[in-house]
């Protein structure tokens, strides 16, 4: 079955430290991968995507993610976390054009001063 897994419910990081939020996906065709962020009582905001090309993609607010086909992973990273990065992060995948986004269960990122 097509699925996305985010193995950590919560990630805690000190401000200024690097952060990683993990995501793995099930193999089925050619996946297109996304990260979205959700702030409290807000909608989902697009961060970055991997469609094709360079495995390292850069997105909004200094975030980046690396597509690793052999490990079926698409981990979200940032070199230096900010307190304002604290939010709920969702990894998602599309398997066909026009298709639905399949979301992971979300990871709560908490960045402490």
């Amino acid at each position, binding site marked *: 079955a097509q699925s996305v897994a985010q193995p950590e419910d919560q990630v805690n990081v000190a401000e200024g430290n690097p952060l990683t939020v993990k995501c793995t996906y099930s193999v089925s065709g050619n996946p297109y991968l996304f990260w979205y962020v959700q702030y409290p009582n807000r909608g*989902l905001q697009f961060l970055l*995507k991997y*469609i094709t090309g360079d495995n390292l993609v850069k997105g909004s607010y200094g975030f980046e993610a690396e597509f690793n086909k052999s490990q079926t992973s698409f981990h979200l990273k940032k070199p230096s976390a900010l307190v304002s990065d604290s939010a709920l992060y969702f990894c998602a995948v*599309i398997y066909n054009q*026009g*298709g639905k*986004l399949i*979301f992971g*269960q*979300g990871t709560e990122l908490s960045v402490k001063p």
Partner: protein
Amino acid sequence: EPEVTQTPSHQVTQMGQEVILRCVPISNHLYFYWYRQILGQKVEFLVSFYNNEISEKSEIFDDQFSVERPDGSNFTLKIRSTKLEDSAMYFCASTYDSYEQYFGPGTRLTVT
């Protein structure tokens, strides 16, 4: 910057009542979607709409649900007879190229 809008932001209704959730997608977008998020859970796909018809629907999207794009700008989700378990945040999304989906701020539906 264009954005997806949704109304109302919060809807409270009694069990068994009909509700209509409204969305205005970004104007040149071609694909439209509804998702929902039950409190504390992940975002789930409900239905996708392209070329004036449903292109895919989930098992959640039963006969109680329907979608419409009545006038070329609005995109509505109707729940015919609401149940307690329909309480959730409902998100509309749209895309032009079928990859990056832009989400609205959501409608919080509370069924009492």
